[in-house]
């Protein structure tokens, strides 16, 4: 019987994240896995090999692992983007940011022209008026786009929407509407802002259509395209309360297990919402495949810092407002997690504020003293305001952190001036402190909160630059190597997939990020701009050409 062919890919440079062989010049791949990593000469003894020079001028890294994203991250692209920052859509088209109200109106006019049915609502997302220096954007601005077509624009925070008069007339939103969260002008008429979900839902069929379309099966494929263009070969959905539901599993399996889908997907459940039992999670875990992973747990403890809903320790928010909110009762966390802990399930907990981190650490201490485990990989998700002493505790408890490093760029300026002030903003997502404390670190984008893009995430941690251009917390900067480790093997470790992905080494899945420039030799300031040629997933090549 003939030996299966092994393909050897020489490359300009290959960074493996394998400590015993950090750099090589060729990889050999048999089937879905790496057969060898070394030099072409070393590989000449492999039986039945062929050399493929596709990557001869490229730089290869382990495929990036995004350990905190959401399954519907591409769904928003069903609607028109009008955010402040440039953003690339699943087809590779770059949408320039809307820098003022007129640019928002122009963007929406183009979208309006492209809709044939005059009654079809115009749906848009990403609006970020926090960056606009002019007057407040209101419904009458949107009336300049259309007086007849309902328009619904979701803000970047996802907590509010701006709508036009046609929509308000259609859904009967007027001076009499009693709900809070509908600001009104001096004459008592609503200005066209719907704040928080209850008010947004008054947009009725338009509201349902906005979120309904995001669930279309097509958006899963679009997510794969977004990942591919970002060099990402493992995605996560953190978390999905329906993850153990057979329909959900079938819908994801249909896409992810298709060999044309360029990434692996790890779906965490949200048992605080779903009340899923340990047994159901264990059954789901058994249904995992090489590409689709199930049966892990995600819990959200608090809100967000930029939304002033994260739970902070003293001195809290700069403007002395009340503390944030608990999404899950702190005193019930131990009880919720105990059965999952005992069953050995992987558990990640969202803690943006440092007080939420305290609660999670106390909980893990309790669970570990009741039922000791060594290799649990409890992970603090976001972990943004964590202090050095908390990092030492995290290290002592053998826990991991997944930092939201993109915050420095997207909200760093607001954190300095508005939320927590320059001192605590400088220690946000403190990767240096975490690494020095010996804590396993990963970093994420939380797509769609920020765009899917591991190089941007790494760039943010290396440079800590804010959108207005200054360096926030230079002492917390890390090296390019540390940052790239965090978005590959570091993330794989937290998913307990580091035996399969995250580095380039024999036996592991042949997942690669294929770059046009060498991130180790360029100016670290340019890290986020390194062009991505495409990816390899399980030995299959996916060029990122614009489709």
């Amino acid at each position, binding site marked *: 019987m003939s030996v299966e062919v092994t393909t050897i890919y020489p490359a300009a440079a290959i960074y493996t994240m394998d400590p015993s062989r950090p750099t090589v010049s060729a990889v050999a791949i048999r089937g879905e896995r790496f057969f060898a990593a070394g030099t072409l000469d070393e590989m000449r003894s492999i039986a039945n090999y062929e050399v493929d020079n596709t990557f001869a001028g490229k730089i290869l890294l382990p495929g990036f692992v995004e350990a905190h994203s959401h399954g519907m991250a591409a769904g928003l692209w069903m609607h028109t983007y009008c955010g402040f920052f440039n953003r690339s859509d699943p087809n590779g088209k770059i949408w320039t940011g809307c820098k003022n109200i007129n640019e928002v109106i122009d963007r929406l006019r183009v979208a309006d022209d492209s809709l044939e049915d005059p009654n079809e609502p115009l749906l848009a997302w990403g609006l970020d008026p926090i960056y606009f220096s002019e007057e407040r954007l209101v419904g009458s601005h949107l009336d300049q786009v259309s007086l007849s077509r309902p328009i619904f624009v979701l803000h970047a925070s996802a907590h509010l929407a701006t709508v036009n008069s046609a929509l308000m007339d259609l859904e*009967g939103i007027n001076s*009499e*509407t*009693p*709900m*809070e*969260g509908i600001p009104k002008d001096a004459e008592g008429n609503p200005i066209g802002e719907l704040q*928080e*979900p*209850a*008010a947004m*839902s*008054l947009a*009725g069929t338009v*509201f*349902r259509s906005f979120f309904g379309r995001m669930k279309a099966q097509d958006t899963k494929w679009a997510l794969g395209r977004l990942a591919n263009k970002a060099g990402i070969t493992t995605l996560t959905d953190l978390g999905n*309360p*329906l993850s153990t539901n057979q329909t959900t599993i079938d819908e994801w399996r249909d896409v992810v297990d298709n060999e044309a889908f360029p990434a692996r997907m790890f779906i965490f459940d949200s048992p605080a*919402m*779903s*009340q899923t039992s340990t047994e159901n999670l264990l059954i789901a875990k058994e249904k995992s495949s090489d590409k689709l992973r199930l049966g892990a747990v995600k819990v959200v403890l608090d809100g967000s810092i930029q939304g002033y809903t994260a*739970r902070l320790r003293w001195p809290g928010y700069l403007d002395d407002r*009340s*503390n944030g*909110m*608990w*999404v*899950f*009762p*702190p*005193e*019930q966390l131990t009880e919720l997690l105990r059965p999952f802990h005992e069953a050995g399930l992987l558990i990640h907990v969202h803690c943006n504020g440092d*007080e939420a981190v305290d*609660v999670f650490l106390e909980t893990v201490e309790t669970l570990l003293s009741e039922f000791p485990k060594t290799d649990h990989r409890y992970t603090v998700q976001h972990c943004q305001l964590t202090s050095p002493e908390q990092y030492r505790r995290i290290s002592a408890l053998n826990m991991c952190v997944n930092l939201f490093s993109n915050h420095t760029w997207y909200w760093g300026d607001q954190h300095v001036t508005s939320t927590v002030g320059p001192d605590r903003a400088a220690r946000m997502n403190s990767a240096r402190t975490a690494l020095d404390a010996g804590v396993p670190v990963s970093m994420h984008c939380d797509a769609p909160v920020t765009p899917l893009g591991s190089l941007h995430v790494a760039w943010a941690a290396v440079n800590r630059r804010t959108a207005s251009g200054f360096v926030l917390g230079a002492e917390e900067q890390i090296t390019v190597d540390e940052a790239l480790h965090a978005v590959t093997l570091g993330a794989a470790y937290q998913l307990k997939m580091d035996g399969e992905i995250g580095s380039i080494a024999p036996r592991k899945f042949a997942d690669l990020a294929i770059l046009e420039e060498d991130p180790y030799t360029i100016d670290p300031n340019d890290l986020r701009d390194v062009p991505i040629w495409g990816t390899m997933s399980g030995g299959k090549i996916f060029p990122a050409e614009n489709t």
Partner: protein
Amino acid sequence: MIENVLPFTVIGGYLGAGKTSLINNLLTDSTIGRLAIVVNDFGEVNIDESLILSHDGDTISLTNGCICCSLIDGFAETLTQIRARSDQIDRVVVEVSGVGEPRKIAQWGHTPGYFLDGVVVLVDASTVIERSGDPYVGETICSQIAAADLVLLSHCDLLEDDEIHIVEQWLKSLSSAMILRSPISASMLFGLEEVGVERNISPIDHVSVTLEFPKPVDLASIEVWEKSRPSGVVRVKGFLSVNERSEENTEVQMCGPNLTMTASQSDQLRKVLVVVATPRTPKASIIKWLNLLNLAN
């Protein structure tokens, strides 16, 4: 055709305050009608198996016509589903999670097809003062209390009367809500006395007074009246003709201290208010109070 608008009552309160027992009692109280209970967690509502007619994922149907809905699909979707069967439902009760904000959830009561019919916050009288100092959840507990129209004190049996009194005084410093000791009847909780329907109720349960207002009422009298509420009055419901308002028929709701007036969608012709008050509230004081509305300026 006038659609059936569903009353929407929010029940909040911190863990252990007794929300679940209250909801279980409501589910089996035949005087309330058919409830749709919206909960975060089916597991917490320990519904007697013999009452369950069917269980299809997000909804449990009971043999007495009540249903219990989970929030897994979110509020907007759940309220749409309940709305679709509004001819089979008389009232919606939403249980807020132990750390949830009742005032935020209450906004869903303004969804078309519903009207907000009170924010009830349960408070464990035996622990609330101590817990209000908890570094993690103290602030949450206090803001829940501040959001209430009615505060319902539970676990009063664990305290002496003077201790309960201290708790009540403390609560008054946080909230303008009406403070009641549980258990109270469902009539009092929801103000179930229907306009124009005389019922034979026990005065131990609650006191109710009905008064007609054949002549239009001034907004100014309403303002005076609103501020002079006798301490025992829990609920007021009914219809008035208000001089300064454009609609013919104004629906009036008072839950604890909070008054709301809306343009009525019903074709109710009788202008009448029904007051529900705590047992032993003198009827004379309620009638005197209602007559403030008849004062011309």
